């Protein structure tokens, strides 16, 4: 539902200009790091698997961002934790 809402909301606001800008940023982070396509997605799945061993996660609100600060890339992960698990 959340993603559907997101999709609806975004599509009404997103402009061609923003689409270009977002694509551009993702592309350049990959270019600069020589990062193969799909590698980030694999990393995200592995991170979720590791954190899930210790915590119950709110998967809908789990967020990953690949950004740039100046010309340096940064990867930000946000895991909303619901409760800890017995290890």
């Amino acid at each position, binding site marked *: 539902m959340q993603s559907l809402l997101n999709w609806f909301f975004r599509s*009404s*606001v*997103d*402009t*061609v*200009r*923003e689409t*270009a*800008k977002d*694509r*551009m*940023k993702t*592309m*350049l982070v990959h*270019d*600069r790091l020589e990062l193969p396509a799909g590698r980030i997605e694999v990393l995200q799945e592995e991170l979720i698997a590791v954190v899930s061993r210790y915590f119950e996660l709110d998967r809908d609100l789990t967020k990953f961002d690949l950004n*740039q600060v*100046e*010309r340096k890339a940064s990867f930000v992960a946000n895991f909303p934790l619901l409760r800890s698990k017995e290890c």
Partner: protein
Amino acid sequence: MITSGKGGVGKTTASANLGVALANTGASVALVDMDIGLRNLDILMGLENRVVYNLVDVVEERCKLRQALVKDKRLPNLSLLPAAQTRDKTAVDADQMKKLCEELKELFEFVLIDSPAGIESGFQNAVAGAEEAIVITTPEMSAVRDADRIIGLLEARKDEIKEYRLVLNRIRPSMVKNNDMMSVDDVLEILSVKLLGVVPEDEEIITSTNKGEPVSGTDNTRSGLAFRNIARRLRGEDVPFMDLDPQQSTWFSRITKFFNPAARV
């Protein structure tokens, strides 16, 4: 050096215009066409009929540097060193270019090197003699990506290239306003680079190329003014950036904006 990575974004046009604009401020200027095998700068300057010797002839010592330099039709303090048309990029190497540029620096206040497209030997030769770089791009994704690649290469040569700045060419203010293309700020944010100038899209550029008279040499064109501003910045003047907003805010555009809030920026 004037460089871009991608072809067709306006390197040669910018070189010709900055050459004329700088010469008009009184400085002595040499324009060097490094696009060996694909010579074009002479056409934009309207000097194609005066080319006798070229850069490769100088490097291979078939003539003296002064013999190969072609004086501009109107500006005696502006000279062109043409590229060879029948050779290729391997005709010179980085050391030869370095030596040639040293010689030119002794004779002129400004030496503008028009780099060929690409990141191969042509770029490497052009960068060898340079101290500063002007990176040209348009606000299109492919051009910005290639500019980023060039910036990466320039960063890796920090010791030789003391400074590099961006010229954003062919901006279409009305399309930016409608959010149909990236703005100047968008491109600057993405590339994180210092801005040297913004040049609006202008049909006059085509006319001026056909006449062999760069727009920066004549008044009353927006692109010409933009290039003259860049030249003044290169001379160390603090010139504010042009306001590229399309002025016409009609009742119609106001109504469209009211119904399409995304276009309100």
